């Protein structure tokens, strides 16, 4: 029996009816067409499906859609500001921090959650925050570097805004 799900995704309100067995990742991809969020392991062990719920990085494959009732979800599609890429996205491009790109959306969301909480993380802090994320293409190092690079960019941005 379907139940009502009211939540916010990337700033937009949604009011849907879903089967209780529906996972958050299924609602995002299949109902809302937000296919940037991937689904890769079926066992909650790769974090490719990571999105932010109320500002925290979580695995959308391991959460029932109904559990985010009333909450705010952010996916990779909500990261850029219109045509302007988020500094994390630009840093990922500039540092070649992805190859096939399949795990990238999840990584970006985890990195965003990390930088929101800790604007100046050390490489070790980045590694701890990202350790759930499997990437088969890179050796992870260039991702860590990109996240540090993004942190610097965000700080510079903040300073500039503060200076205005």
């Amino acid at each position, binding site marked *: 029996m379907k139940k009502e799900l009211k939540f916010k995704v990337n700033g937009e309100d949604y009011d849907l009816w879903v089967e209780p067995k529906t996972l958050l990742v299924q609602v995002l991809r299949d109902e809302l067409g937000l296919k940037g969020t991937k689904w890769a392991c079926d066992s909650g062990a790769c974090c490719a499906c990571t999105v932010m719920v109320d500002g925290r990085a979580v695995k959308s494959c391991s959460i029932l859609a109904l559990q985010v009732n009333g909450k705010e979800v952010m996916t990779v599609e909500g990261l850029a500001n219109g045509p302007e890429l988020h500094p994390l996205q630009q840093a990922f491009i500039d540092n070649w921090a992805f190859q096939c790109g399949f795990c990238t959306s999840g990584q970006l969301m985890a990195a965003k959650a990390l930088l929101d909480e800790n604007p100046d993380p050390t490489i070790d802090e980045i590694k701890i925050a990202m350790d759930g994320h499997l990437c*088969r293409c890179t*050796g992870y190092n260039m991702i860590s570097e990109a996240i540090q690079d993004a942190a610097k960019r965000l700080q510079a941005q903040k300073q500039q805004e503060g200076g205005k």
Partner: protein
Amino acid sequence: MSEYSVIGKPIKNVDGVAKVTGEAVYAFDMTLPNMLYGKLLRSPHPHAKIISIDTTEAQKLPGVKAIITGKDTPGGKWGLWRRYPELCDQTALATEKVRYIGEPVAAVAATSIDIAERALDLIQVEYEPLPAVFDPLEAIKDDAPLVHEDFENNINATRHIEWGNVDEAFKAADYIREDRFTLSSQHHAPMEVHNALASYDKGTGRLTVWASTQSPYFLQLGLADALKMREGDIRVIKPHVGGGFGGKNSTMPESVNAALLSKKTGRPVKIVYNREEEFIATEHRTAMNLAIKIGLKKDGTILAKEVKIITDGGAYTGLGATTLYLAGTFITFPYKTPNYRYDGFRTYTNTMWSSSMRGFGAVSTVYAAETQLDRAAHDLGIDPLEIRRRNAMTPGYEAPGQYKVESCGILECIDKMKERVKEKWPKLEKDEGIGFATFAYMSGGIFNWIDTPYAFSGAMVKVNIDGTVDLFTQASDIGQGSNTVAAMICAEVLGIDVEDIRLHLGDTAITLTDLGAWGSRETLMNGNAIKAAAEEVKKKLISVARMKLGENIVYDLVVKNKRIYLELRPERGFSYYDIVRDAIKENDGEPLIGIGHYTPHNKGMISPAYGMGIQAVRAKVDRETGHIELRDVIVVHDCGQTINPLGARGQVEGSTQMGLGFGLCEEILMDNGLIINPSFVDYKLIRFRDMPPIELIDVPTYDPEGPFGAKEAAEATASPGAAALANAVYHAVGAEFDTNVLRPEKVLKAIREKEKKDRAGK
């Protein structure tokens, strides 16, 4: 070096924006209107006769639109070794018998994945279990069960390589040692699982398939053979691919069955494997039993090598026969081996079959050869780097009748490594060790087992009136960055920017044939095709410019920075845009098109060029628990002229991760043909915290066969990790291994054995 405008510059990934915004579309993400979802029913037995399949109950489930079994297929067999029909052994669905746990026996199409999965539970299959064989050494025995009745002793392929006089050379050797290894399999574990979406048009009898594949052309051929259709009636489109690593070369049951179900229902059908299916029912690295004998002079010079390999092929051929071939070659690299004998046999067993995987043929053999060389060096009292140096190949080195190595920077790589290690790691902690291993790999294979009459790579360049370029080629970017390399090569030739080029790739209907992304072939082979196509256009532009400049032109014309000008008098020239417009106008409006292709000729049996180098791993061993901590890695490599240093580094990093995984933790655990760790929880991959930093040092050379001197850039670096790691452990605590995955328990056992040996020695 800096004569290039684009080549050798750190160019950002041309797919970057799509991939960081979530807009990049993978086959995994695709749907079509009216689409059905397919699922495959898989065998729970490693070897069994199929007595009957009853689909009655499943048919009744609302939402089920079609169910097929082996009887409903056209019965076409396929494989990649198309030149040898007996090795084309794959089928869409098993009919007479199943040969591995996970082999599909029926396929369902339904209106949702949920219904398709539930329908599988309702299909009744009666099996009569047969005796099964899992061990390659058992498989060749006369009384072993036969996996394929026509292949006695389960021998699927054989390979013999010999040069020099091996027996005489061993007699002349001062030092001989024999070692035996059992080298395990490894899973590709791409983040995007195998999946395919097939849409059959009943009106035209044509099929379109979108798939997660490394080679649209191979898939087109496989589908044609499987479905008994004309190649030209099948269009394969490769969207973005979420990783392949050698696991997406073969045409696999998901695409064939999606096509069959689409044909039957008249609706698009999509089949997506889940992660468990990906582990149990897609190809993986070839496991092998390997014996290696080496004869050396006192000073460490290699006189002779003899190598024996029996591989665990699994139930079908895949690219496993190629693995056998390459293993016999790359175990000699990058050393001068004057006398060499190799015998390789690939066996059929009742397991999911093994095939190509990143560095195939090299990864396992490098482990054996490079750990053996370290032990020999130790016995002879020679420094591990020095013994490698003494035997290193030099430019132009030839293995009689097998291969010739043109550009070759291995000596410089070893020397650079020596220098850097001394500087970077001057002192080691207790129980810390440094291990080295060299590596080399091909820049695309020369062999034509696929039996194509086409050129190995083709490309077409179309220059539009505004100077923008449409580049058509079938080269497959599966994450390795070949799209960026393709655009860079084209941009360099035409003197324009990467941003001016629009790529049309991986669609068999609109692009020229390319054999796809395997064996590090895209940069050299496809690069050559693109370069040739772009140069054809360039020639047309130059001839127009030459005419406009008037007669008596003695200077060479250069196309660069969006201008066409005299090399020695740069001020005399024209804008690229003007010349493009003139060229089109002057030729009655005919579009400016260049076509290029590449097939290697007279380049030996293996490859036109070889990338190579050396890796060092620093690791610390916990003597009480056997735990290994990876601390640091240095890679020094020669990839000819680097096309894109950013992408090359990315590839080296990724290859290293996979190579270290092969040495440290990646293990497919099997119990009577059943893979018991088919998930990312139980199959251990190196993650962020366990990945050491990697320093990459480039030793540039120029390979005459490669575009701008480029050759293989990173696949080779998948092979040294495990060996370098084992050597580091050997140097830290003296423990020796004859297998590759150094789980703590194994390491502790080896340490204890070493301690026992030392005590007995005293």
